[in-house]
């Protein structure tokens, strides 16, 4: 990863130019051509450093979501995690260090769709699913400041 890659990651987390040829515009800022911007971004996506060029939405502006937690017996964790991840509505699924050891986000069109997924998981696993919807959002999304040390 060179200094151009780092600038691509640092300086374009927001305000992607809303013009017909945004990658050409980025290239003009970085002093490289459009083809090179596209090639570098493809490489960063393949390497896993970039998830996608995309939008971060205000919560609940175009659908409903919740954070859910389960206390899964350790010997069942692998199987229950796989069952949870298989839902298209689940977009994050982490094991965390706590008695409540499985944490995931469910997003769907409406609250009833979200509820249906939680109920389905509880029914199929026999484990209670804690529903922790967002009540207040204090977060100002400025992207993720990277420290290259």
């Amino acid at each position: 990863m060179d200094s151009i890659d780092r600038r691509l990651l640092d300086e374009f987390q927001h305000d992607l130019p809303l013009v017909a040829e945004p990658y050409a515009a980025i290239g003009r800022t970085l002093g490289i051509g459009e083809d090179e911007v596209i090639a570098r971004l493809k490489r960063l996506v393949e390497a896993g450093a970039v998830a996608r060029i995309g939008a971060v939405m205000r919560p609940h502006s175009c659908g409903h979501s919740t954070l859910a937690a389960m206390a899964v017996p350790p010997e069942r964790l692998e199987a229950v995690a796989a069952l949870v991840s298989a839902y298209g509505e689940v977009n994050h699924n982490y094991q965390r260090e706590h008695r409540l050891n499985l944490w995931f986000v469910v997003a769907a069109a409406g609250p009833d769709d979200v509820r249906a997924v939680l109920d389905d998981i509880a029914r199929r696993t026999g484990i209670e699913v804690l529903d922790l919807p967002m009540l207040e959002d204090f977060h100002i999304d400025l992207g993720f400041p990277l420290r290259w040390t």
Partner: protein
Amino acid sequence: MDVNDREADLIGALCGGLPLVSRPFAELGRAVGMDEDEVIARLHALSTRGVIRRLGVIVRHHELGYRANAMVVWDIPDHEVSETGRRLAACPEVTLCYRRPRRPPAWPYTLFTMVHGHDRAEVEAAIAALAVREGVARHPRAVLFSLRRFKQCGARYQRRAAAE
């Protein structure tokens, strides 16, 4: 819902990421029956209204060396939650900050923050410093380090009926 059907279609098409081609907005528009100018105008309007918080490169922390992340949860008295939440959200160490319901007795915590770092020690030091500096060290808290990532992708607000 703060968006109309056309906007919802556009946001849905964008979930998979903006295509890495010379005219990405034109290509995005083809999937939803809009021309390039309409896509750009709608994305501009959604950003101005704050529905789109940011549009750009979405990095993956873990792959960039940020291998430790902790969800730090706080049991803050109800009358102090909003003020404390606004203060913690402004801290450079905090990347997400939400209020969520308590579920006693299993779950007494109501303020959720996320802290990322290169390793566990860095995250622990950041949390301890934050707690003292912001005057929240006296409140009960739990630190839930992430041990394994089973799945991570962008949200798809799909309609169940349409998806089946």
